[in-house]
């Protein structure tokens, strides 16, 4: 199998098994919903504070659900020694990483796209004319989280206390994604002109590129015998 078909088959396999079981996406979705509800209760917001707090709440919810999805990503491979088989196959390690990255990214993005209308309703947002920009920020932020997250998912799945270690390792590293995504989302919401927040989107894109390349390179040291 060549490089790109490995990526395609791995991602496709994850999507098919998800379509049949609907385990990951549904648990991610309900977890995010609960996070949002908890935030709404604990801040008891009026319309104005909701607008200022909403970007932060949205991205915290997205990242937390992302961690749920990422934690399950390689866990599924442990059953029936699938991970061992993947490691023994003479396929490039980087392709395994990219395949997993694609499926993790898609899972997170699907959940975010389902949740987004709920945010619009709950927080009474007026976004329809800026929808493409929103989706761009969503994609850039999600790719950043899943690029680092896929690497650490593969790392933590083979150790003790994996549920604890994944967020402990992942969350400090994605601080730039959080700052960039929250600032960009907030600026879009408050109706600023693109020149004021372009640099945040650029930061997200640069982060995505750097960490996809770095993780791609170091992944071979994670799945190595």
């Amino acid at each position, binding site marked *: 199998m060549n490089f790109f078909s490995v990526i395609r088959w791995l991602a496709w396999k994850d999507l098919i098994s998800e379509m049949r079981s609907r385990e990951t996406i549904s648990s991610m979705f309900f977890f995010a919903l609960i996070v949002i509800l908890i935030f709404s209760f604990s801040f008891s917001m009026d319309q104005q504070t909701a607008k200022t707090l909403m970007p932060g709440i949205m991205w915290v919810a997205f990242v937390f659900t992302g961690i749920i999805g990422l934690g399950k990503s390689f866990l599924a491979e442990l059953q029936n020694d699938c991970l061992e088989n993947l490691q023994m196959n003479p396929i490039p390690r980087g392709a395994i990483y990219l395949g997993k990255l694609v499926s993790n990214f898609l899972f997170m993005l699907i959940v975010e796209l389902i949740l987004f209308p709920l945010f619009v309703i709950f927080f009474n947002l007026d976004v329809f004319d800026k929808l493409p920009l929103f989706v761009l920020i969503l994609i850039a932020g999600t790719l950043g989280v899943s690029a680092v997250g896929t690497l650490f998912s593969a*790392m933590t799945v083979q150790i003790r206390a994996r549920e604890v270690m994944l967020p402990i*390792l992942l969350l*400090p*590293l994605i*601080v*730039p994604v959080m700052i960039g995504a929250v*600032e960009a989302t907030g600026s879009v919401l408050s109706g600023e002109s693109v020149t004021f927040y372009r640099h945040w989107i650029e930061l997200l894109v640069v982060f995505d590129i750097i960490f996809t390349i770095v993780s791609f390179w170091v992944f071979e*040291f994670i799945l190595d015998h």
Partner: protein
Amino acid sequence: MIRMIRKYEDWFGVAGGICIAVGLYLGLAASPPDYYQGEVVRIMYIHVPFASTSMTAYFVMTAASLWYLWKRNPIVDNMAHATAGVGVFFTAGALFTGSIWGKPTWNTWWTWDARLVSFTILLLILIGYLMLRTFIEDKEREARYAAVLAIVGAVDLPIVHFSVEWWRTLHQPLSVSPRGIAIAGAMLFPLILMSAGFYLILTYMVGVRTQMLYLQQLLEAKKGRLLGEVHL
């Protein structure tokens, strides 16, 4: 290599101790107070060496990690491990003394400044690194995963710093930087002496800890062989 460390480490410790003792006297008693900050500025002689050694420690850790992934020499991994442990001490020291300095000068213990945030993230990565190592049984895998984390963290830290700098910043610019030295001679000398002392102590501590980890691993390997298992 371990023999070389054992031979020279004590000299580093002694020289570092002398430098810090003289530097502390010069910094706390003999040097003039700052024009703006008064006597408060004297914490600089501890804070700045803490900060620069902790960054150097992370740099050394990353270099050792790259070296390990390249050559797979277990002693280099012990060195990276040792540097992380010592690095936690120096990073926490930098944050702690910085917080004490921030209260009288910025009127706050804590603020979301670029350097403060990057040092906090640095500390969190180091603690995560040490935690990760405790959760892996297999020595070879532990070394590999830890090295990967160190490298990813090294790539991340400049981006963290950069992004928070855009976000908001309050920290005074560095007094001693490649762009020039903005500090009086009477204050510079004790600062250099203290920094030299801190670097020597850092070397000493890493040397001791590396030896300890190496011996620990050796002991475990021998124990394993006695029990009929093969570890290393």
